């Protein structure tokens, strides 16, 4: 199998990640922050190690400002539903994933004023329009790296606009974390992340990280329950991180996420980016050489998320994906990639695109096999 769907979930995982998950299940086992036995403390230690690793990775000074959730969708929902209510205004962009669009649609039905600021055909946010539209917005939520085109937004510029208007800035780093730098030094107030894509952990992990100066009391908790703390209270704790962490944590998953981040740190993000650019660049250029092809990506030289989305003139994207899978055992994704708004923005609605997303372990040989397969289909 040639796996080119790393934008969905990264695979394979580093051996160290598999070992960390297995070790937790085999040898630790207990429930973090529940009880005082050695295993429970060791489990809590893994979770705290993971908080520290995540905080450090995103440039957050306080590990207790890291909240773990089931995935990035749950993290984004926590921030959006926890912060917004009828009469509030929120601004976003037309390049968002359904993880943002759907909760915003739900909130709009409840009386929240939702504004989608325009992006150009490469997916870049029109900053002038954004600056005009942001007036009165309580919250801005923006996709950092597109899962459709790999376009990377200018976080610093957006942060500056948000600060000037007193708007909280939530950055969706689902597709960027682990590939390009995502850091509070660039200005966001909240970063939503997933553990199982670029951070190389396993599904079932993700979360929110809050800037050191952000007041988390602005966000209501969506779920309440056991936390292993202040158990005598009927009311859910309001302190961090328990405020947003009801119920048993995903200990094995967080052990894997910790290991994934350690693996990334050992390689260095710059090296990872160079490696991904090499394989994704070759893949994009190779497809662009095929007659009738269009690759939807930022101009060469701009930051890019290593996502190769393309169409072939006169071909159904479902048919291309079916051929690649059936005839060549190539894993890819076709259609809208849960981001139909982004496809409307770049002009690929309703047909969508075929998306090939190389990962950290994708080889030059994998890319040549994939290119050969796409060429064969086009002929």
């Amino acid at each position, binding site marked *: 199998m040639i796996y080119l769907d790393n934008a969905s979930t990264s695979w394979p995982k580093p051996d160290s990640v598999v070992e960390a998950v297995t070790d937790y299940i085999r040898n630790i086992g207990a429930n*973090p*922050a529940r*009880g*005082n036995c*050695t295993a429970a*403390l060791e489990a*809590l*230690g893994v*979770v*705290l190690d993971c*908080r520290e690793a995540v905080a450090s990775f995103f440039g957050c000074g*306080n*590990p*207790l400002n890291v909240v773990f959730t089931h995935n990035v969708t749950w993290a984004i929902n926590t921030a959006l539903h926890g912060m917004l209510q009828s009469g509030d205004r929120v601004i976003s962009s037309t390049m968002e994933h359904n993880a943002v669009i759907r909760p915003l649609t739900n909130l709009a039905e409840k009386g929240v004023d939702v504004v989608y600021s325009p992006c150009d055909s490469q997916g870049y946010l029109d900053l002038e329009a954004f600056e005009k539209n942001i007036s009165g917005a309580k919250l801005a939520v923006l996709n950092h790296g597109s899962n459709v085109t790999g376009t990377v937004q200018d976080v610093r510029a957006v942060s500056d606009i948000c600060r000037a208007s007193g708007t909280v800035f939530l950055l969706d780093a689902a597709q960027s974390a682990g590939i390009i730098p995502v850091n509070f030094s660039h200005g966001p107030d909240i970063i939503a992340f997933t553990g199982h894509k670029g951070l190389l952990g396993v599904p079932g992990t993700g979360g929110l990280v809050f800037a050191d100066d952000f007041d988390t009391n602005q966000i209501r908790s969506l779920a309440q329950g056991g*936390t*292993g*703390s*202040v*158990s*005598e209270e009927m009311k859910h*704790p309001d*302190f961090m*991180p*328990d405020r947003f962490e009801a119920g048993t944590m995903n200990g094995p998953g967080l052990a894997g996420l910790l290991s994934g981040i350690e693996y990334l740190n050992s390689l260095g993000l710059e090296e990872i980016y160079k490696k991904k650019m090499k394989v994704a660049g070759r893949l994009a250029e190779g497809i662009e050489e095929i007659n009738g092809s269009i690759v939807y990506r930022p101009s060469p030289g701009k930051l890019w998320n290593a996502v190769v989305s393309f169409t072939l003139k006169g071909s159904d994207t479902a048919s291309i994906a079916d051929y690649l899978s059936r005839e060549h055992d190539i894993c890819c994704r076709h259609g809208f990639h849960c981001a139909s708004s982004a496809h409307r923005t770049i002009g690929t609605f309703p047909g969508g695109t075929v998306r090939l997303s190389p990962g950290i372990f994708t080889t030059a040989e994998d890319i040549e096999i994939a290119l050969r397969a796409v060429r064969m289909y086009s002929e």
Partner: protein
Amino acid sequence: MSNHIYMIYKSMTHVLAAERAARKGGVSCRMVPIPRNLSTDCGMCISVKEEESSVFLSVVEEKGLVPEKVEEHKDAVPAGRCYSN
């Protein structure tokens, strides 16, 4: 025998984070279950020798990990285990 001071926190996460900060700061301490007469919480707290308690408090304060309550414990070394990484 020294008296010990119990440093009581809001959650186990805070306890472990404070214990790590103290150890890094060279303060010896141990995590012990919170005596029920001090708190009905089911978790743990940190026991520090009285003579080291002011250093402990200054080290953890730097990390924003000030205990919710500080209680004197007049017994000898309390039951409990050291947690190490």
